[in-house]
């Protein structure tokens, strides 16, 4: 996808400005050129094209979901995605976790002086393509430029709005003892793809990020009438963090089984080598669903139609207070603990 986009010539350089200048954020002619020729050209839609300070939209239904997220990933481009695609997928997925159908995004760029225009164009094209695939429109935005050395190329913030058509309460407080926990695929791949690239680690077979939108799967679960108690995307802190957040909010015990949690072999190998935990490694296209036990089988079928590696990984109980337990590969039970900060690789 990126390679394809890269062939499209960047519309902005105008021969004399192949890089972002501070002036591109200064409110003058250069900024207008950047916005018009790059952002408006790529994201064009009737709402955005009004060129107003704010987009005015009609929302079908009465309930809406609203979220925001900032994206600061380094490197900007990685196997399986880039900062542009995750800036769309991440916010779309946040909306999906409320059971919402995503409709509109905003897009705010913080650019570092000196960023090649060609790079920015690749990012913008990737956002455009991801938004198209997700069926969302980018309808408003902002651009700022910071001094060289004060940013990391591009930071992006996207906010998103979606409509909630269902009547269910999908939230951590909705989780009940007995709920079955499913994930929509192998975990930890995005974090390890970034780690492998950032540290220049070479493995047999490249690790590709799992970055992907999941809202269609959630819509399919809702359409089938699955009783969903909670959804949580497995981003920073990975599966472990997500399970802890839910256990704490619901004041219940989450019990998962190591053998049931899908992890790709290359991710497992990289984690073993670096002393990292795949369950704490971030995903960008994975979520955990807490569903009523009677619906678990059907939910799994629906998930597997889109995600062949989806699986049931555990359940919720009221025994054991607020905790997350893991049944280890050899059958013993232990705490699945949160990392203190970022995972630090082990020495030996």
């Amino acid at each position, binding site marked *: 996808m990126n390679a394809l986009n890269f062939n499209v010539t960047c519309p902005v350089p105008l021969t004399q400005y192949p890089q972002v200048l501070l002036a591109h954020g200064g409110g003058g002619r250069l900024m207008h050129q950047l916005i018009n020729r790059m952002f408006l050209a790529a994201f064009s839609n009737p709402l955005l094209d009004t060129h107003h300070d704010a987009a005015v939209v009609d929302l079908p239904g009465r309930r809406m979901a609203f979220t925001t997220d900032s994206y600061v990933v380094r490197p900007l481009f990685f196997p399986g995605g880039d900062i542009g695609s995750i800036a769309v997928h991440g916010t779309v997925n946040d909306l999906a976790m409320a059971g919402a159908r995503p409709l509109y995004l905003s897009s705010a760029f913080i650019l570092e002086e000196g960023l090649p225009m060609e790079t920015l164009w690749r990012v913008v094209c990737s956002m455009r393509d991801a938004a198209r695939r997700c069926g969302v429109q980018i309808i408003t935005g902002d651009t700022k430029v910071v001094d060289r050395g004060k940013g990391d190329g591009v930071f992006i913030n996207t906010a998103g709005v979606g409509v909630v058509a269902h009547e269910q309460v999908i939230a951590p407080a909705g989780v009940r003892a007995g709920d079955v926990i499913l994930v929509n695929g192998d975990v930890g791949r995005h974090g390890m793809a970034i780690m492998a690239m950032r540290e220049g680690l070479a493995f047999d077979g490249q690790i590709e990020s799992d970055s992907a939108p999941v809202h269609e799967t959630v819509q399919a679960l809702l359409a089938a009438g699955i009783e969903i108690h909670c959804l949580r995307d497995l981003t920073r802190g990975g599966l472990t963090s997500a399970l802890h957040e839910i256990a704490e909010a619901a004041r219940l015990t989450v019990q998962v089984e190591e053998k049931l949690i899908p992890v790709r072999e290359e991710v497992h*190998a990289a984690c073993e080598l670096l002393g990292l935990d795949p369950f704490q490694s971030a995903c960008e296209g994975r979520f955990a669903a807490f569903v009523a036990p009677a619906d678990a089988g059907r939910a799994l079928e629906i998930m597997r139609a889109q995600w062949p590696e989806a699986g049931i990984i555990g359940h919720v109980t009221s025994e054991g207070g607020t*905790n997350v337990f893991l049944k280890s590969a050899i059958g*013993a039970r232990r705490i699945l603990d949160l990392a*203190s900060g970022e995972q630090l690789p082990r*020495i*030996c």
Partner: protein
Amino acid sequence: MKFLDEYRDADLARQLAREIQRVTTRPWTLMEICGGQTHAIVKFGIDELLPPALTLIHGPGCPVCVTPLEIIDQALEIAARPEVIFTSFGDMLRVPGSRTDLLSVKAGGGDVRMVYSPLDALKIAAENPGREVVFFGVGFETTAPATAMAVYQAAQKRLTNFSLLVSHVLVPPAMSALLSMPDCRIQGFLAAGHVCAVMGYEEYFPLAKQYRVPIVVTGFEPMDILQGVLMTVQQLESGRAEVENQYTRAVRREGNGPAQALLREVFQVVPRKWRGVGEIPRSGLGLRATYAAHDAEKKFGVAGRRVEESPDCQSGLVLQGRLKPNECPAFGTKCHPEHPLGATMVSSEGACAAYYRYRRLQPAA
């Protein structure tokens, strides 16, 4: 995953556990030396499969944990200098010195970088001729050859801006020190498989003979550890005190010859202070005089620091196997991974951190 799943098989684990149960007729106390083994034991719940008559005590084999406070303070002082790029394995970054840690020095403007190999640090030195690049060389015989290679290559390539803050330690002298303590409870050792992959296991024969203690070179997967325990108990039950090798897929009796030659070329054996244990003679590696130009301690004049440990930290007793982490009054209260009083709570291989991570709900025995 091939070569991994077969060593984590639940049925095999139960079979081995049953066999250990069958051969154990009396209480025995074993020590696993290596922090990697401690981590695996607690992570997989291996000790829960063992009969109550067997006690595993966790040895001082976590390189981060035994690095003395003085050397960490030296590292912090060097890392804060503007001309320095300070490189280290990730584990060392959060280890508290007497006032701060490397991550805080980084946040305060120090150029501190995590590397996966000392050779990466050497590359940084080659790319930054105007800066002083220092690598924090910690670890046992396992990591020492890579450090030695970096210094050796630095000398060959005349990279005078590369230096080493060295705190490498050796396992057999520590085992000897533990065994000569008057109240030593250790009746058998699981020796550290990866250390032996480098050094071989000939050094252990005199120890086994002198102290009448079985020593079984053991790997790191659940099956390895269970089999190591079984072999040690079988020796104890039959009154033998021999050196045996469980980890045959990685360890040869003579070890890795080229790695040992490199160690001899670059390092000499020196006395070394172990955090929580004290000074142990002939238990460390220091740079030979021929490589003095690459000695960060000399280059930055930071030798001779003296600092005191937190009085609440009992990691010394933990490292000597006299106290289980959750028996320490500060465990989980004053001391936890976000606010570690001692290094055993910092490193993922530290016994206190392993207990906090996987066991903190379990009351002390």
